[in-house]
């Protein structure tokens, strides 16, 4: 019986590619699939592209391809990635360039576009699309529109499948769902019908378990995390999928990490809301009947995924410029570390008042006591050390940069023992805006183009 082996290659822009290389070398893969995009990533790419129009994709794709292209040719698997971000054609150029430089030929690279709707805002408004934010129910204003950095619809697996049908060895897209790269090979290989909801749902759920790299193989695992071995060479998950949609989650033998029912469960609900209605462009997934079975060490069989008809609309997530965060961290030693930190905070407030410095918003933590717990922190006694962290929000970048300047004098003029890391770079803040767009308004603009190494492009 035919089985398809899909390996995970990346969970976010900045992830290690060691797990991808391990899967490419020893995973006996048919496909290696990547998820390079998060909401924050899109904002970074938008800024890159604004400053340098030839950028806008996740730049680690070059390094990844250097390591993976020879393995792809040798071990005969295909790759799918959404590393194209806001500029998939530029990402393709990088792949072609790396291939040529390494003397690798006979590679077809497909590019999928059509997710970027930022240039189409007024057209979609004219078509009657409701831009009201799904999360806050706030109306879309001219002010938000002017501050938009990106706006992308989440594409499903369909155009990726078409690219594979046209013979692509590598498929590069922009904003697809995190799971699309994983589902597409199954539709292509098994010829699943567009309304075969249960199987499609199983494929999406498999993708969900693979799209955060090691989060299903022992990474960020809360149960018995001390028992996880060799984090430094942790294996990224591999799914071996059967034609009926059932699959086994595993990893390369001898790699670090762990696959068992617990590690899979933790990833199963990660970023899921209603488990009976996990909405994707291809199918609505129901995981409330899923069974996990440990069939061998580091092998978990997954069955029972159910699917329902796909939604009529696609989701758009947009990001807008929402000012800047400046932050300062200064440390104080025992005895009375927390008390010293609080005194320093109070002095800063008084200086701000005297100099008439104000911010949109402020947030204060005592690192070592409550920065990860907030109001849930319990009494910590008299700790060895406490770091005061003060964060400010402002629409004036210079003001965010300059906040730090208030602190160094306290080393001599304030409570005893203050130590600092130095200045922390100011960070741009980003507001998110999401809404639904009728599927046909997006899909009619999706394009697939193919390039080959050696061809003029």
């Amino acid at each position, binding site marked *: 019986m035919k089985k398809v082996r899909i390996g995970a290659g990346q969970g976010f822009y900045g992830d290690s590619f060691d797990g991808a290389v391990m899967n490419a070398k020893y995973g006996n893969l048919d496909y290696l699939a990547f998820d390079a995009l998060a*909401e*924050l990533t899109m*904002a970074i790419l938008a800024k890159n592209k604004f400053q340098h129009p030839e950028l806008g994709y996740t730049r680690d794709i070059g390094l990844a391809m250097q390591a993976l292209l020879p393995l792809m040719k040798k071990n005969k698997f295909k790759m799918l990635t959404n590393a194209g971000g806001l500029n998939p054609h530029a990402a393709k150029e990088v792949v072609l360039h790396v291939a040529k430089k390494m003397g690798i030929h006979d590679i077809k690279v497909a590019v999928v576009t059509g997710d970027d709707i930022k240039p189409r805002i007024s057209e979609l408004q004219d078509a009657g699309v409701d831009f009201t934010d799904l*999360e*806050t129910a706030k109306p879309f204003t001219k002010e938000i529109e002017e501050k938009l950095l990106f706006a992308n619809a989440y594409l499903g697996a369909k155009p990726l499948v078409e690219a594979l049908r046209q013979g692509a060895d590598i498929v590069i897209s922009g904003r697809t769902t995190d799971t699309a790269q994983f589902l597409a090979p199954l539709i292509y290989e098994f010829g699943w019908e567009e309304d075969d909801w249960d199987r499609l749902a199983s494929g999406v759920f498999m993708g969900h378990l693979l799209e955060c790299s090691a*989060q299903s193989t022992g990474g*960020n*695992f*809360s*149960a018995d995390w001390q028992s996880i071995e060799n984090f430094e060479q942790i294996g990224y998950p591999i799914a071996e999928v059967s034609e009926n949609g059932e699959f086994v989650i595993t990893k390369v033998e001898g790699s670090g990490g762990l696959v068992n*029912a*617990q590690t899979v*469960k*933790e*990833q*199963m*609900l*990660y*970023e*899921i*809301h*209603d*488990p*009976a209605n996990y909405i994707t462009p291809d199918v609505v997934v129901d*995981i*409330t*009947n*899923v*069974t*996990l079975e440990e069939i061998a060490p580091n092998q978990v069989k997954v069955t*029972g995924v159910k699917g329902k008809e796909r939604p009529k609309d696609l989701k758009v997530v947009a*990001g807008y410029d*929402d000012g800047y*965060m400046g*932050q300062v961290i200064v440390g104080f030693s025992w005895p009375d570390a927390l008390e010293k930190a609080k005194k320093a905070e109070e002095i800063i407030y008084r200086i701000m008042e005297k100099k008439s410095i104000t911010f949109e*918003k*402020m*947030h204060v*933590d005592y*690192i070592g006591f409550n*920065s*990860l*717990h*907030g*109001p*849930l922190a*319990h009494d910590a006694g008299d700790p060895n050390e406490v770091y005061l*962290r003060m*964060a*400010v*929000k402002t629409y004036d970048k210079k003001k965010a940069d300059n906040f730090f300047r208030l602190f160094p004098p306290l080393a001599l003029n304030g409570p005893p023992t203050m130590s600092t890391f130095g200045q922390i770079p100011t960070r741009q*803040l*980003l*507001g*998110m805006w*999401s809404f639904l767009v009728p599927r046909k308004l997006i899909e009619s603009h999706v394009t697939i183009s193919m390039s080959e190494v050696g061809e003029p492009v």
Partner: protein
Amino acid sequence: MKRIQLKEIAHARSGDKGNTVNIGVFAKKKAYYPYLVEQMTAEKVKKFFQGLVFGEVVRYELPNIEGLNFVCKEALDGGGSQSLRVDNLGKCFGSNILRFEIEVPDDFSL
């Protein structure tokens, strides 16, 4: 009856989407699951996260994996890319909840 911390009988992971955090809580053994279902109501979890979660908390039951999913709205100071918090992606909600107290019989042993 005695009180134990959730971490003795469950594990958890949290994740973000916009200004919403979800927390998956999983019984370490099948026998522990009924305690979670009975005592970890949406209301109690909302109260537990007072000061961090400002919106509605919705609970979903997954008896197939002895799991509960808590979806907490207005939980991230605006959302990961807008928040001034250190834990701007809500990664620590899953560990925070492990301090939730569960009532068990006096003769309960792990």
